């Protein structure tokens, strides 16, 4: 049985003098690991002097030089393929796709090589690489800059798909991803990059991959989510609490390999499950969780599983963008309907 991480919404909002944002958690993890492990290198477009378009790699070039913080030519295929080559030679590359909407040219290298290198060589060559990208909508960005496409990777064997949703989890999970001996797609919810600050000691302590984080304990209903929707889901839990409904909130964090045990344990307790995902509904990762709940927890359920998701449409340009993202009200409504059903 895997260890479940139980965190509390109280600490989630804690403010401190030395507190950092989610994106600063990313930077802090990169700097820590580059300092302590010479095999760690960062590469991508604008990651050098510019420090990344969101400033995730700020200050790294000055500290570690322009070879270990490597500005690549403007080609995502090159970034991904060079990353595979570096990893195969025993380096630990952390590459960046500037936005998740630009990760598509990387998919061949990620799916055909990074993810299967260990298996196809029977362990002779491995690929301990991290493919980072700012992920998701809600920042009024141009087209192709606001996608939620994590499900394209969750069906790829040999790959870990991780989405941190707090400064502490960005720091701890990125450290874990870099140290992991296998490739990781590390998606950073850009909408909450600077949502709030919390104190994250720069102690090099990684958080476990392969576990879900229980952010709030509850007894009436389980709300399962990941990425930036953690924000709305926690707000929904607050709103539900104000009308006497006790919601448990789970941040999946590492989508694959999935720690389903934590979700099952919660659903067995509450008998109700609402899944919240930013991505389009059909064949999104929520469908996998719903299927697993049906397979393994059907007799615990008091009501049908509900999904609150993006619609099955392209992310609208920014005037309509927020209509695609599940709102707190939609989550509250889905939870109430689930409770009304049984």
């Amino acid at each position, binding site marked *: 049985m895997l260890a479940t991480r139980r965190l509390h919404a109280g600490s989630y909002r804690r403010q401190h003098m030395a507190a950092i944002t989610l994106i600063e958690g990313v930077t802090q993890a990169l700097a820590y690991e580059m300092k302590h492990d010479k095999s760690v290198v960062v590469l991508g477009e604008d990651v050098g002097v510019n420090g990344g378009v969101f400033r995730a790699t700020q200050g790294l070039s000055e500290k570690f030089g322009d070879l270990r913080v490597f500005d690549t030519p403007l080609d995502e295929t090159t970034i991904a393929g060079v990353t595979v*080559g570096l990893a*195969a030679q025993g380096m630990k590359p952390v590459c960046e796709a500037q936005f998740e909407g630009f990760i598509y040219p990387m998919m061949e290298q990620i799916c055909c090589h990074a993810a299967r290198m*260990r298996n196809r060589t029977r362990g002779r060559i491995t690929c301990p690489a991290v493919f980072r990208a700012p992920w998701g909508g809600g920042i009024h960005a141009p087209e192709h800059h606001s996608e939620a496409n994590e499900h394209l990777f969750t069906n790829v064997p040999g790959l870990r798909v991780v989405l941190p949703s707090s400064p502490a989890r960005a720091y701890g999970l990125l450290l874990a991803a870099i140290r992991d001996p296998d490739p990781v797609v590390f998606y950073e919810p850009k909408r909450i990059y600077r949502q709030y600050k919390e104190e994250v000691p720069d102690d090099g302590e990684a958080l476990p991959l392969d576990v879900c984080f229980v952010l709030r304990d509850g007894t009436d209903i389980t709300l399962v989510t990941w990425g930036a929707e953690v924000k709305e889901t926690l707000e929904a839990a607050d709103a539900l609490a104000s009308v006497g409904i006790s919601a448990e909130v789970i941040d999946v964090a590492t989508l694959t*390999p999935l720690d389903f045990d934590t979700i099952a344990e919660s659903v067995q307790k509450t008998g109700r499950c609402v899944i919240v995902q930013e991505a389009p509904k059909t064949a999104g990762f929520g469908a996998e969780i719903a299927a697993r709940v049906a397979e393994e927890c059907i007799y615990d359920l008091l009501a049908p599983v509900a999904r609150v998701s993006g619609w099955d449409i392209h992310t609208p340009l920014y005037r309509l963008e927020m209509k695609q993202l599940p709102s707190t009200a939609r989550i509250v409504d889905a939870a109430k309907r689930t409770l009304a059903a049984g």
Partner: protein
Amino acid sequence: MPIAAKFEIEYLQYLDAEGKPVRKDLPDFAQDLDYMVELYKLMVSTRVFDTKSIALQRTGKLGTYASCLGHEATHVGIGASMKPEDVFAPSYREYGAQLYRGVRPREVYMYWGGDERGNDYQNEPAKHDFAWSVPIGTQCLHAAGSALAFKIRKEKRVAVCTIGDGGSSKADFYGAINVAGARDLPLVAAIVNNQWAISVPRKIQSGAKTLAQKGIAAGLNCIQVDGNDIIAVRKAMGDAIERARKGDGGSVVECVTYRLGDHTTADDARRYRGKDEVEDAWTKDPVKRLRTWLEAKKAWSKKKEEKLQAECDEWMDNEVNAYLETKAQPATAMFDYTFAELPADLAKQRDEAVSLESHQ
């Protein structure tokens, strides 16, 4: 009008199709006839191996196989130009180079015979080379990434990739030579121009007069060589690799050869190319060319050829037997290399697969 840039591509050839020297400045290695005999032996071994591979496929003992017939000078020349510490990133046909670096025929057969263990090369230096890359061109970037690792770690090593004429159309190839030129990486990309990408001929693959000149745009050293002349291949590749090792820049070396066989055993080249063209290509056979030259130098004889053939037959018998005697992996092997440690969720699926095995 002023000229912003201009370029030329040299063409290198030492032996003509008849095995006669076309220039007098033979490189030092070519004056060592024992060395040249060793290269010849490996070219013959490669051809014997290739013939056996096709026979195995035709008799149902091997899956789809990509023949290297006609590429022997290019492939062996590339392998012979590398140092053991260098890294090779092949596509899926360069057996001559791989045999030189210690890949065993039984490993080739295991891979094409449906067993991942074929990619787990046991002998150095192949043990630290990449495995075959089936998605076209992708291996070029693995070589570029390896070259970057060498540069970061200040290792005097070179990454060598091979790519076909068709593969040189792919973004991965352009990306690899581009980053190598931009950041001065020790990368040598050998374009094995065998005139055919399955059914698509070289002329509609690119409007460029040579494929070598693609490297000019990336800022690399570029040359075109007669890929059926192993002296030319060995010289150009050796120079390119040592130049990269010294930090004097990467290269693109275009080896002009011909795919004498089908693309793979699943292909029938008669559908798209004429008999005359193939017959003409046979007159440029790289194996016969080197043999003729060695015989003229009194370094080779019919008797030696017979002895070599017998040695090759024995070698192949051993390798084929080792392959045919290899038992299939247990079903658990499908799961055990997916991650360094089996995740709990996947362990459940593994248990299910194991239980199905025991019921059969």
